[in-house]
Structure formats: structure tokens, C-alpha cells
């Protein structure tokens, strides 16, 4: 029973973790991309469509990643090359993404989904309990774990990661040192888009293997809050993502439990819990101005025009 719940928590948390990790890299480079929701839903529809058309959910995953990455290029072009306002452009990306995905996905509504099957790792999966929970999961889950470890190493141990952190701290200084700020930011934005797309693919291929309009249901926004909550550190994203996933699953189970016990709790109240929790978490993490100042990448959201 506990194991079943844990499995659903993992499934619910994985897209949050992946999307948040992508946005974390983008923000570490100093770019605030509010379009995560839009990129995620585009990834979901691309993944679903590709899986339907080719019959392979793995092609679907690839399509989700590519879809999210390409869609993020729009954002990159506007904010990095044309120096448009990052907040407004991110919102535009979300609105466009929700609309475009609805349009593209129309043909696929109601079709039965192609679920991504778990990849069972030999030997490790025979470990009692952990074997089933951790080592008999789908590919996207393994990717999420790899991403946490990989991004942590990349940001803090590699030279390229150092450059990204430098740009996020002070893009003018980075430019003065000869670092190509714009090109690096483009890459960071596209990485964020690819991750959001992958998260979306998880939604339409694993979580609810189906296409429903607006199926991201605000997860992109929660992922944004997650990045702040994690103080831009990958392992904390993992922790926070699972916390949110647990709340999300918890409220579903609470609804059933309440029904069984005959307690009347409106389902809407429980459905609102993840959103309320997001607000509470944001308050807790932001209210100390001092630590917020120290942790936030100093050039986040600021426009950059290189002088030639």
C-alpha cells in the first residue's frame, strides 16, 4: 500500500523536478523564463502526437524534448537578441503555448495513450522494496535522477558551469572578460526548454497517458516556485519537487479517505492545497531578505545589451 503510494508520488514529482531543473539552469545564467508552463504543454502535445503517429513512446520523448527546446528559442530570440521584457515575453510564451498546443492536440483528444513502459534494471531491481521502487521505473525517471546529479556537477565542478554562474552574477563583468554572454544564455534557455518539454512528455506518456487540453494544470508555475524554494540548488529541487508531488498525491488520497470516513471535505478545497502550499513555501523561503539577496543570481531578469 505504502509502496503503491510512493510509486504515484514518484510519478507526480518527476515532471516537477525536471522542469524546475531546466529553469534552474536558465535562471543561473540570469534569464527569467516564465514560459515554463507553455513549454511544458508544448512538450506534452508534441510527445503525444509523435507517439501516436509512430507508435513508439521513445520517439515521443524525443519529440517532447525537441518541441520544448524549439519553442523556447522564440523566447530566447525575443529576450536575448531583441532585448524584450523578460516577464512579458515569458507570459506570451505561456499564452501562445497553451493556445497552440490546444490547436495542435485537437486531433488527438480522446485517443487512448501509449504508455511508456518501465525499464527494469537487472539485478538492482531484485532488491526488496527499493528494487521495485527505484530500479523498475520508466526512462524519464532515470533521466530525472541523472539530471540532478549531472546538473549539480556541471554547475559547481565544471568550467562551463562556472561561466554560467558568473554570467548570472554579473553579465557586464562576464562580457568584459570575453565570455559570450548571449550565446551561453541561448544555450541555457534552450536547455530549460528541453527539460520543460521532457517534463511535458512525462505527463502525456506516463502520468496520464492521454492528451487533454491544458493538462499541465499549473505545474509549470509550481516548477518556477520550486526553483526559488530550492535557492537555485539542484539537490534542493529534488527535495522540493518530491514534497510538492507528495502534497499533490496526498490531497487525492485525502479526498478518498474523507469520503470513506464520511467526512465532508469539498474536493475543491483539497485540489487547492498544492497551490496554497506553493504560496506558503514561497513566503517561507523569501521573507528573509538577506538570504534571498545572497542566493538569487544578481543579474536575473535584467536586460543585457553588449557594447561593441
Amino acid at each position, binding site marked *: 500500500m505504502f509502496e503503491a503510494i510512493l510509486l504515484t508520488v514518484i510519478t507526480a514529482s518527476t515532471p516537477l523536478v525536471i522542469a524546475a531543473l531546466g529553469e534552474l539552469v536558465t535562471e543561473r545564467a540570469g534569464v527569467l523564463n516564465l514560459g515554463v508552463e507553455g513549454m511544458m504543454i508544448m512538450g506534452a502535445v508534441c510527445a503525444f502526437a509523435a507517439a501516436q503517429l509512430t507508435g513508439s513512446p521513445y520517439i515521443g520523448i524525443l519529440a517532447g524534448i525537441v518541441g520544448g527546446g524549439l519553442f523556447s528559442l522564440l523566447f530566447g530570440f525575443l529576450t536575448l537578441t531583441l532585448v524584450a521584457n523578460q516577464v512579458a515575453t515569458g507570459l506570451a510564451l505561456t499564452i501562445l503555448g497553451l493556445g497552440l498546443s490546444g490547436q495542435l492536440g485537437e486531433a488527438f483528444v480522446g485517443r487512448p495513450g501509449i504508455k511508456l513502459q518501465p525499464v527494469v534494471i537487472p539485478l538492482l531491481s531484485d532488491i526488496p522494496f527499493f528494487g521495485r521502487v527505484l530500479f523498475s521505473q520508466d526512462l524519464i525517471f532515470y533521466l530525472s535522477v541523472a539530471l540532478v546529479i549531472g546538473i549539480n556537477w556541471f554547475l559547481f565542478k565544471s*568550467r562551463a558551469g*562556472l*561561466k554560467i*554562474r*558568473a554570467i548570472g*552574477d*554579473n553579465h*557586464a*563583468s*562576464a562580457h*568584459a*572578460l*570575453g*565570455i559570450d554572454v548571449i550565446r551561453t544564455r541561448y544555450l541555457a534557455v534552450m536547455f530549460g526548454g528541453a527539460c520543460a518539454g521532457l517534463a511535458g512528455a512525462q505527463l502525456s506518456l506516463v502520468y496520464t497517458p492521454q492528451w487533454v487540453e491544458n493538462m499541465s494544470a499549473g505545474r509549470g508555475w509550481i516548477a518556477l516556485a520550486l526553483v526559488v524554494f530550492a535557492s537555485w540548488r539542484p539537490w534542493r529541487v529534488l527535495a522540493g519537487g518530491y514534497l510538492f508531488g507528495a502534497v499533490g498525491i496526498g490531497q487525492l488520497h485525502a479526498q478518498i479517505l474523507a469520503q470513506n470516513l464520511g467526512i465532508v471535505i469539498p474536493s475543491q478545497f483539497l485540489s487547492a492545497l498544492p497551490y496554497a502550499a506553493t504560496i506558503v513555501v514561497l513566503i517561507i523561503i523569501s521573507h528573509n*531578505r*538577506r538570504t534571498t*539577496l*545572497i542566493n538569487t*543570481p*544578481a543579474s536575473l531578469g535584467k536586460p543585457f545589451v553588449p557594447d*561593441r
Partner: protein
Amino acid sequence: MTLSEDPAAVPLLSVRGLTKLFGSFAACDAIDLDIAPGEIHALLGENGAGKSTLVKMLFGVLQPSAGQILWEGAPVTISSPGGARQLGVGMVFQHFSLFEALTVAENIALSLDTGISLSRISEEAASLSRDYGLPLDPKAHVADLSVGERQRIEIVRALLQNPKLIILDEPTSVLTPQEADRLFETLFKLKAEGRSVLYISHRLEEVRRICDRATVLRHGRVTGACDPKLETPASLARMMVGSDVAEVHRDESAPLGDIRIEVSNLSVPARTPFAVSLRNISMKVRAGEVLAVAGVAGNGQGELFDALSGEYPVDEDEAIRIRGKAVGRTRINGRRVLGAGFVPEERNGHAAVSAMALSDNLLLARSQPDKRAFLAGGVASIIRHDAVRSATRRICEAMDVRKSGDDPLAGSLSGGNLQKFIVGRELDRQPAVLVVNQPTWGVDAGAASRIRQALIDLAKAGSAVVVISQDLDEIFEIATNIAVISEGRLSEPHPAGTLTLERIGLMMGGIHESHSIPERAPSMPESTHAR
């Protein structure tokens, strides 16, 4: 051996007819320059003369529009800072390119092109910094370092590349006189190793002290190439500025009036992690007096200004008095209404908004103290745009502000002209008290002298003026009394005539006498600080 001694020697760096155009504006115009190996070469010029532009071309940050650069006799194209470094050119900018959230070692690693391991960089940086007399801890976070220590990072960064030519852009503007001496020792060491230094400055005494040759720029052109030791400050200044700049005249004998602004035991905790706490600051400024607060950047000047202006009111009402009234808790407009005026350090984004017109910028500082003139309609506070515009015109005429158009955007004015407007904006009111932070930073010599004269004239007319400045030359020009701010503490004020550069330097470094607050009124015996 310098170039003048051995005519057959090939100069390390030669520049022929180097030009840089921004649109139709020539920031650098057909510049010729020669630097020999083992030479400390000064690049002189006032703000806006083209020194920074020239040097950016030498470091590959900008590309020349015309002309040639020769390195060790052969023509080269320097297309990027990386290319410059490969040639053997190192640069220490005036504005540091440092990353606050990263460590010293990480900062240095970012400026090196190759992928050496961080631990090796740490070791090399630590030992090299020691060798050159500029010790650094590689694991420290830049945010925790003082300005002088940050400069060391920049220098060590450049030295790790083993450069043949090091360019220093206004290095002593952020140093105490003692720290500057230490820097000069480092430069002599570099010279002894056969390296060359291109030393950019507008400080004539320094240049005459340490440089072998000097090239003078004005309006983007070379107006002189000489041996600075053979020149006088006046002749160098003439090459820099052209016509003699009006000297600032001061009437030493005028008596002082009543106390206009009084600060008693002001303590303010730091607002942000990187700010400085103010500790037990006390001062009294009388009508007719110019009190200069001297200090190197980062010792609490901004914080002091914020407390005096009321942008950040303090808890104790009595801590600050303007014209006898307790104003510690009063916000800025309340203080303005009492007759105080304020000129902050930052022109852009504090004293003025560059994207707004000049008339709007006037309103920024004068909407409340001049409510009757500029606003109408009672609660609705409708702006009288024509009244504001005519006042703007009046100020621009009075201060000789050069601008394009009748009411242009503040951002289109040069630094000097904008500063003249900002100071003029306050002078227009004949304020009883004026507090200015860095009055002539980044301003050309003509505008600077005009502003300084205006401050003196204001004091002579009976106002109390507080000038916070990092420029000791300026301070000696205009101050009646001088106090030094260091680590958030303010020293006793001393009459300007009784202080030497050396004494001030020591005070800036923190070796000053303890400050005791008088319990009762006036005559507290002046501490014996005669030279």
C-alpha cells in the same frame, strides 16, 4: 633601456593613426603612441578624452575604425581580450569585472583561457600575490573583500598571464595614499622585470612621480608626448585641458554662522549584507562652512548620505538636526521643506532617471518643496508642466548645461552636463543646507571646476555644505574643515589648512584618534594635530 636612450630598440607597443568612430563621433582620432620595454608610460587626459576607448582597442574589447597596432614591430589585429592576452597584454580596468558571489580563485579562473584545475589556480594565485606584495586568500568570497583587496585580484589575474604590457586604468582612485604607495612598489618591481606599464590617470603628481614618459589626450587626439618629470603640473594640465581652466577661488576669512546641520551619535545598522554600518557618527556644520568628508570608497559614504538625506530615516529623531529641528525620523521631502538639498553619488538611477526628460527630473527633487510653484489643484496635485519647464530652462542657463533640444532626455547629456544640472537643481533653491556625495566624479574638468566654485559660492552666501568625496585634490580645493570616514566611523573634523595628505591617508586607513562626544556645549579643546 628606454626608447629615448637607444634609438635602435624596437618599441614593445606602437600605435599609428589609431581611430575609433561611434557613428560620426570620433572617440579616438589618429592617435600615435610608443611604449618601450621596461617603461612606465602614462596616458593622461581628463574624463571623456578617449583614454578608455584607446585602451579598450588595445585590449580587444573594441575594434579600431582605422589605423594600425604594432606589437614588437609587427602589425597585429587584436580581435578579443583572449587575443590580447595571448599577445602578452594584460589589463586592470577601473571598474572591476568581478563576481561577488564567487571566490577569489573562481574569479581568477574565469579570466584564464586554459582549463587549469581550480586548486592549482588557488596555489599559484596565493603565491604570486604574496610575491608582488598584494596578498590574497583564494577561498575568500569577493563580496567580503574591501575595494583595495578587490583590485589586487584584478592585478593578480593580469599577472598570472605573464604579460609583457600591463594596462592600469585609474588604479589609485580607489586606494588610500598608503595603498597607492604599495601599488607603486609593485609597478617598479614589474619594471625591473622588463615588463611595461601603461598607466592611465588624471592625477598629475602621481604621474610625475612614477612614470618615464607620458602621452596626453584631449578630445580623442594626442596633444602632447613628453617626460612628465621634466614638466610642471600646470604645463601637463594645459596639454590635458587646453585653455587654462578657471581656478577655484576661496575666501578664507569669512566667519561661520549658526549650526545648520548637527549629527549626534548616529548609529545605523547595515541594511544589506554588503553594506557598512554607521557607528557613532557626530558632526556639526555651520552656515558658511564647507565640511568635506574624505574617504576611500566603501567606508560608509553612501550610508551616511542616505541617513542625512532622509531616504532611509533613522530610529532616533534627535540624531540628526537640521536648523535646530530634530529630523531623524523625517523623510526626504520633510527635510527639503526645511531648506535642505541633496545630490546623490549616482547620476543614473538615483539623482536622475536617464529615460526621462530634464523637466521631469527637475520635478524629482522639487515637487514638494516647491509645491506651490509646480503643482495645482490641491489634492489632485496636477503638474504645471510649463512652470517646471521654464524653471528647467533657467537652471540650464545658470549652469551652462550643454544639451541638444529644449527638454531632452537626461540620458542624452554628457556626465558633466547632467551633473551641472543636478547640482543646479538644488542651488536654484538657495538651500540652507546642501549635502553632496561625489560632486565631480566622472565629470570633465570644465564642469568640475564650475561645480566646485558653485559649492564655494553657496557656502559664502551663508549655506552649510557637506561634501562627501574620494578626490583629495578636490577636497583641499573647497573644504573649510575636513573629517575622514573609515569603516563607518567619522573622525574629528580638522581645519583644511592643518592637514597633510599623509595624515589623511593614515586616518583613512583607520589609524585615527578616538572620537569623544562633547556632553555639554561648544568649546571642546581641539586635539593637537598640528603638522
